[in-house]
């Protein structure tokens, strides 16, 4: 196979043919990404737009077809905080040319600069009684903005460490559009990566969410109030990306499990954080890294508590 490809490459190279290219660029907006592209040495005929959440084109999804004269496209309905990759494929007489992969990470509008930070936007559409942890082990679970009310079988929403979570999200599955009711139990647990979008804790229990095993957790468009201790708990080496959040009245925004030395990377962007009893980020690990950007802060205590390898802030304002 390789020899045939090489042969084709060499033939064209020796013939001095100009390479056809499609140069694609992407710019992020709030839940959307704007694409624009241009051509060299090729005439656009059948143009298709593809999207994926990684840079490997295998598994990408066609999200649109555009006319030959079009050079821009806006991909909408995207998850803030998630990095998306896009391609343009042009087909001429049966021969396809793909653009470069252009990536962008949509994010909620505004931030410390004065724009809106919305947090969760759900208004309750009904209620669901939760008698056992809801497992979201793959795919997408869409709560439709219903309020999920755990029973005492899962816990009482106090500071007890033995409570069960209302949701357990695994393997980069997506939980979106839900409200956790007044018995917050142990919130949401993440195992091996996961995503959370448009989620409201009306009364955080033991904590809003816990990263239980390694991976990347992406959280966007969330609101959580009244955590007596911490909002986020991180119990494993992992990366946590939080954007467009509103967190009020907690001991601290994030706590890496006490006494642990593994590395946690935390990125918090465009959040409104207020009334932290102790502060925002706390760790005992000298390898962990935290960034707080474009956020609005009020009575938020000490930003970096503990021996962080790096803990930086930029673009934050008081409100």
């Amino acid at each position, binding site marked *: *196979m*390789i020899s*045939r*490809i*090489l042969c*084709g*490459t*060499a033939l*064209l190279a020796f013939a001095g043919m100009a*390479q*056809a290219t*499609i*140069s694609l660029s992407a710019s992020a907006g709030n*839940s959307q990404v*704007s694409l624009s592209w241009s*051509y060299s040495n090729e*005439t656009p005929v*059948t143009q298709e737009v*593809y999207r994926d959440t990684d840079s490997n*084109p*295998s*598994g*990408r*999804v*066609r999200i*649109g077809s555009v*006319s030959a*004269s*079009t*050079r*821009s496209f*806006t*991909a*909408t*309905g*995207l998850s803030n905080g998630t990095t998306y990759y896009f391609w343009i494929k042009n*087909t001429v007489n*049966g*021969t*396809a040319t*793909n*653009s*470069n*992969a252009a990536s962008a990470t949509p994010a909620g509008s505004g931030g410390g600069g004065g724009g809106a930070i919305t947090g969760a936007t759900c208004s309750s559409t009904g209620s669901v009684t939760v008698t056992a942890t*809801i*497992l*979201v*082990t*793959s*795919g*997408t*679970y*869409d709560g*439709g*903005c*219903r309020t999920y009310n755990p029973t005492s079988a899962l816990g009482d929403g106090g500071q007890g460490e033995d409570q069960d979570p209302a949701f357990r999200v695994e393997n980069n*599955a*997506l939980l*979106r*559009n839900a409200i956790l009711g007044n018995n917050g139990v142990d919130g949401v647990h993440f195992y091996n990566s996961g995503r959370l979008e448009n989620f409201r804790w009306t009364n955080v229990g033991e904590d809003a969410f816990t990263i239980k095993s390694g991976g990347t957790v992406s959280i966007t468009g969330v609101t959580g109030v009244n955590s007596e201790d911490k909002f986020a708990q991180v119990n494993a080496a992992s990366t946590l990306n939080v954007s467009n959040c509103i967190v009020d009245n907690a001991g601290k925004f994030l706590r890496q499990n006490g006494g642990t030395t593994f590395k946690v990377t935390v990125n918090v962007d465009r959040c409104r954080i207020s009334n932290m009893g102790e502060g925002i980020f706390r760790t005992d690990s000298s390898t962990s890294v935290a960034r707080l950007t474009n956020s609005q802060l009020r009575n938020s205590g000490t930003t970096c508590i503990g021996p962080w390898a790096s803990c930086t802030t930029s673009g934050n304002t008081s409100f």
Partner: protein
Amino acid sequence: MSGAAVIVVGATVYWAPRPGEPVAPSEVSRVAAASPSTPARVQHAQRDPTQSQITATPAHTPAPSADTEASTIEQYASEKYQYLLDDLRYLDATQVEQLKRALLARERLAGLSSDPAAMAAVEAGIRGLLRPDDYATYEMLKESDLELFKLNEYAAGITNVAPLSAADRESILKTKLAYKDRFHQLLQDSGLQRTDLSAAEREYAYSVTARALEGYRQSYLQEVRQYLTNEEQFALLSNYETTEFKAELARLRSMVDVPVQGGS
């Protein structure tokens, strides 16, 4: 030449399916299209401007075998056309195999190398094997990649709560595809995708299309409601699809809001 070799070996890895990757939507076919005999693979190796990224791939990284690629596309085609293949009693075993090969060829062609003549030939072969109503099913399923992807997302998300039966999945997919066809026809008629409309005309086309999209959502969900006996299955489907349709409406809106750019 050695540099070119690195590029091409890297490209082979870059475009190949990843081990353990779930069954993917339409682009699996694109990967499978990159068989040794497919000219489009050569095009990618030459034209992909991400070559600098590709060269970073270690030259010794083992490329997946042709068998692996074939297996992946076969698995995908098998799922995509499952509802067609399940009920073809009038075909003998040889004809069924012939049909499967044709469907596989179709998926390969639908990927990188969209060769209209070759596609027409493959489709003529498929038409020759199928009764008209089954050919209509084929026509419906061949453009079902995104719907199948979304069905899989939804089904996977509820698998621990209210798992779908095979019959549930079939009902949901077929119902959605039927209404999607009607919507797409209306979308074409609306002119929203044309580039020569005035702002007012685009706005009008959008309003027509938006109404049609909402009609599509409501009709599809109302019909599916008859098939799903589990309340939570339907509630979660309705939640999932409502979010997805909102996103599609926003995408349509962006076609009105973002001026179309002409020229290259």
